[in-house]
């Protein structure tokens, strides 16, 4: 078995899945974290975003073997001011892009707790939202940094 940490807890997956993209391992029955989403499987939409040792990664292409012994964080584990700010201001529509946006925004806020609108937009430029929730995501995060 390959050990790693998921949102602070010990987790593992089968040796045979080292080459499987991390997204499928996380969402598979052994781990069962459904928050990272499948959107494109080619690093173009950001729906699958996770943090690996604090850095944002595309789980849709990252071979699961690469997180051996490392810490993976997903939106499910990020009960942070960033996630609360987005939820409290209804900063989404269908919500499919939301877990990825939470992860990407969290990565930014850890480095830069009071980002400008332009800095937030740049950090989220990898994250697609088809419903048009971007203006309120930006406002919610700007307010979260200002507090």
């Amino acid at each position, binding site marked *: 078995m390959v050990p790693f940490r998921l949102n602070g807890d010990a987790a593992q997956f089968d040796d045979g899945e080292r080459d499987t993209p991390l997204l499928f391992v996380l969402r598979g029955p052994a781990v069962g974290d459904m928050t990272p989403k499948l959107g494109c499987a080619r690093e173009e939409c950001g729906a699958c975003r996770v943090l690996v040792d604090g850095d944002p990664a595309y789980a849709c292409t990252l071979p699961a073997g690469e997180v051996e012994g490392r810490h993976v964080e997903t939106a499910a584990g990020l009960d942070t001011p960033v996630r609360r700010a987005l939820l409290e201001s209804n900063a989404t529509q269908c919500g499919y892009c939301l877990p990825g946006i939470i992860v990407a925004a969290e990565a930014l806020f850890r480095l830069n707790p009071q980002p400008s609108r332009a800095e937030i937009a740049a950090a989220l430029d990898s994250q697609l939202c088809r419903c048009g929730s971007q*203006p309120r995501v930006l406002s919610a995060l700007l307010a979260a940094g200002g507090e």
Partner: protein
Amino acid sequence: MKPLPPALAATPSLDRWIRLTGEGGVIASTGKVEIGQGILTALGTIVAEELDVARGRVQVVSAHTGHTPNEGVTAGSMSIETSGAALRQASAWARRLLLERAAARLALPADSLTVADGEIRGEGVNEPLTYWDLADQQFDFEIRHRTPEKDPSAYRLVGRDGQRRTDILAKATGPAFVHDSDAELHARVVRPPSLRHRLTELDVDVAAPGRLVVDGSFVAVAHPVEFEAERLARRVAGHARWRRIGSPPRGFDIDESRRETAEAFPLRNGVPSPVPRRRIATTHRAAYSRPFLMHASLAPSAAVAVWHDGALAIECSSQGIEPLRHVIARVLGIDPDAIEIRHVPGAGCYGHNGADDAALDAALIARAVPGRRVLLKWSREDEHGFEPLGPAMHVEMGASLDAQGGIAAWTHDVYGFTHVARPSPRAPGVDLLAARFLAEPFQPTLARPALGPEVGIHRNALPIYSFPDQEVTKHFMPDAPVRTSALRGLGAQGNVFAIESFMDELAHAGGTDPADFRRRHLQRDAGALTVLEAVLDLSGGLAGSRGLGIARYKNRQCCAAVVAEVSVDPETAEIRVPRLWIAADAGRIIDLDGLTNQLEGGAVQALSWCLKESVSFDAEGAVTSRDWSSYPILRFGEVPEIETVLLDHPERDPLGAGEATVGPTSGALGNAVFAATGLRIRDLPMTPDRLRQVAAR
């Protein structure tokens, strides 16, 4: 008294709409579905308001055949009007019946009782009764006529700010979408290159526990491990040979030869009519167009199905589970009552996308593996390649001006393909993707012009303005080179883009201020005039690189006005939209935040269509824009800051708003680009290449 809301007249049993739970809760049922528009939150607020209970007590259960009321399709920004009206009236009845029961128990007149959060009090009553003390009988009541509803002036929840969406915490932190369902088998479809291709050869072995399902040219694989299903699909695709049947499409442009053979239907009393078109002489003319567009949902379509003893259970994110059930039954040759469909949210769909198709795909695969729960997902390439597209449009405008620079005569000729191809039990064909590929195929319905008011191609072709003379004509072209169907707003986006651009052109031609020019022609719709003034107030006016657009959706629903501000990079010719202002009148506001979210989301999507989007094809008719690089959409760094003001009218019925801003935003954008550059962009999208082409003319 007003008649019952139609949905309630169709399902008069009160228990089908409202039930009390043993735990002090209320369950409200709707046939409408959540597609990211926040409808379940808004409907729950209506119920809590009318019943006088805390918002947190109300849970809204959505579309499930045989369980919730049948409310057809969730579309056209109608849910708050139809399901909202039904649930409001049903809640008023529930409250009345509960108060009558309480009155009998307390030996007090019902109208002397008061309710707060489900607690009923009256003179001399020390221990209040609660709704739940009285709920043992449920309702068992048929609604035959109206009962009075709460006066909007007494509202404490409806229209108040600060409401939280009830569904989004789960969406951020756990399984919430049909894609997240548990499954025994994960399935993928192996698609042909295009709708015109059929399978000629497939020589491949699939070992257990993998499964290969082939029915004619419908090819699918399944595997207990999701990634193995992906790999299997790729391997099988490598062995499949396809050939094109019939002739290649005759092109994708609405060119002159296509326009000449289109069927013309001038609008009479708002309805397309088979009468000769009146020729009106015009001095100003301009033609506008939009390309084929995608819904491009962020999640590829998905569905769950399980086949048990000849019966089928489906979970999917279709906007119309009842019609879908009948059409799938027809394809499978089984009784519709043997199919149960439950709506589970998908990502936003913005109209008729692949959600229904995925349900049939899953059903076909499930039938081949009885007893196993199958979760079918499309790939991104298939979503972009096979979803029904929003049709291209071509709009020719004409006008002549009077001596004062006002419009004396107006013509509007809109050419297009069908916007209406949802699967329907009433349609002669089967409008689900897989059906045409089966060994015993079902052909799609031959497109016919929709001839009701404000549908399809001619939605919002009638101007909001009054002119002394006008002729508005729908031109229907049956020969769409691809599958097309409903995309947010249907024809409204192309028509309003043309109308609002042309109004701007005419204002400049007559030397009039574009806002004044609109005021002058808006006499018929005082509400629209108010919305116009509101957006001008909010934005501070049209000075600088700003443009205006206004329309009333379907000429009777939400009125929205938009001011857009642009900057155009002189080097790259890229258009940026730093700011946007929206004013809207959607009648009574139920959920202020939800309404704002819908209006702003529609505006952002329209900017994306207008600035970036265009489906590309090869000569065989296959879609070649199959990913997010070849079909780019607006990104975080490109969205404007938006300010929105809503005009509340508690005395009127609430109106849906999800589609109200797409047209006005499109018009405002084009007009702002003109203000900034002096270039009139009449063909969407307004890419840097297009700007350079127009500048070079």
